[in-house]
């Protein structure tokens, strides 16, 4: 029986750029059927991703990212997360997400038959996920500011 590797190579790619590439100990992604945790030595897997939170762990540091639609490919030697939108927790614009959330909530409450509820719901989901991920931003950014 082959020995399981200690770490996996993770790539997080968006259409615009390569967001992260490196060795990690654990990855968790929002699969359409629910969150998936990937550890080194996982069998090849393909899944679509929905709006949610991507987390990867390097030893004891966990890094969180927001991701909108995308897909996950697990290969024997690496894991690729291809996300249409992905943002690091530190990079999320909280005020904008909050505004988007209020807007979406107002639209969902309105009685106007013209409202595109599906779209409003997606927008709300997206805003909530952004806010949730942003709240987990590592304090690294702040520490650097103080230094």
């Amino acid at each position, binding site marked *: 029986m082959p020995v399981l590797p200690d770490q996996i190579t993770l790539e997080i790619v968006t*259409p615009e750029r*390569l967001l992260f590439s490196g060795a990690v100990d654990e990855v968790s992604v929002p699969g*359409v059927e629910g969150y998936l945790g990937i550890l080194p030595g996982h069998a090849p897997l393909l899944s679509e991703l929905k709006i949610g939170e991507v987390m990867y762990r390097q030893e004891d540091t966990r890094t969180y990212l927001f991701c909108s639609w995308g897909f996950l490919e697990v*290969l024997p030697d690496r894991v690729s997360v291809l996300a*249409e939108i992905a943002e690091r927790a530190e990079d999320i614009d909280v005020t904008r997400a909050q505004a988007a959330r209020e807007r979406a909530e107002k639209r969902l409450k309105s009685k106007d038959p013209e409202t595109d509820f599906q779209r409003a719901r997606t927008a709300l989901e997206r805003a909530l996920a952004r806010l949730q991920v942003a709240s987990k931003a590592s304090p690294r950014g702040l520490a650097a500011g103080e230094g």
Partner: protein
Amino acid sequence: MANLRDVRRRIRSVRNIQKTTRAMKFVSASKLKRAQDRVVAARPYANRMLAVLNSLISRVENRDHALLQRRGSGQILLVIITGDKGLCGAFNSNIIKAATVFLNQKAGAELSLAAVGRKGYDFFKRRPYEIRAQYINIMGKLAYEEAKRIADFLIQQYSALALDEVYIVYNEFKSVIQQRVTVERLLPIGEIEGLREQVAPRLDYIYEQEPQTIFSHLLPRHVDVQVYRAMLESAASEHGARMTAMDAATTNAKDMIERLTLNMNRIRQASITKEIIEIVSGANALAGK
């Protein structure tokens, strides 16, 4: 013979133009660098996507997805990617020329256009083609979202049977001084090309969903990526073309300044010589008395 003052004025104005073209050249050079970086940065996503599509396509039995179906060529839409600005050599006119040739070839079909970039729109709005969509001033800061918006529109029109085929014409970036006008079919999606040989070790994935479902969700994204790539290529080409054109303009201005300076000196010398002759002959006339 031209007036000395006129020539001086002319030299000054050419020098000002030269300053502008030189500045534009440097601006384009730095924009080109950024545009090239973006083309490179967009590659990993596009490549992985193709690889996944390739491995899925062999696994999916039911391939009659709407975006793959061929249903003749009665209604054709051409997406024309040009720049928003001129001063970039033949960049825009090459595209317009290629688009015109294409439209003439397909003259039998019901033709319509989607213009990305002001130059193409300005040209074709005066022509008898229906422009179904125009996207002006998006080439500057080129976000994936914009490409997606365009692709979504195309897919929606295509799915609503308002279109049978969609083509795209754009400048492919070959090198700083070379662009290649390319016409490609976007819809229906033909061969999903590239990387086929790299997928050789076929993997037996665990599928979280039906391969069919993933496949049908991926296809529209493939179109997004194609549009995005074409836009990136075009943006890089535009900056390259502008840089070359402005470099040539700067050199030409330099030549012109040299010629005009020479001319100016001749005029100056001629007038000095004339004055000396006048003085000398005047003195001679006085001495003769």
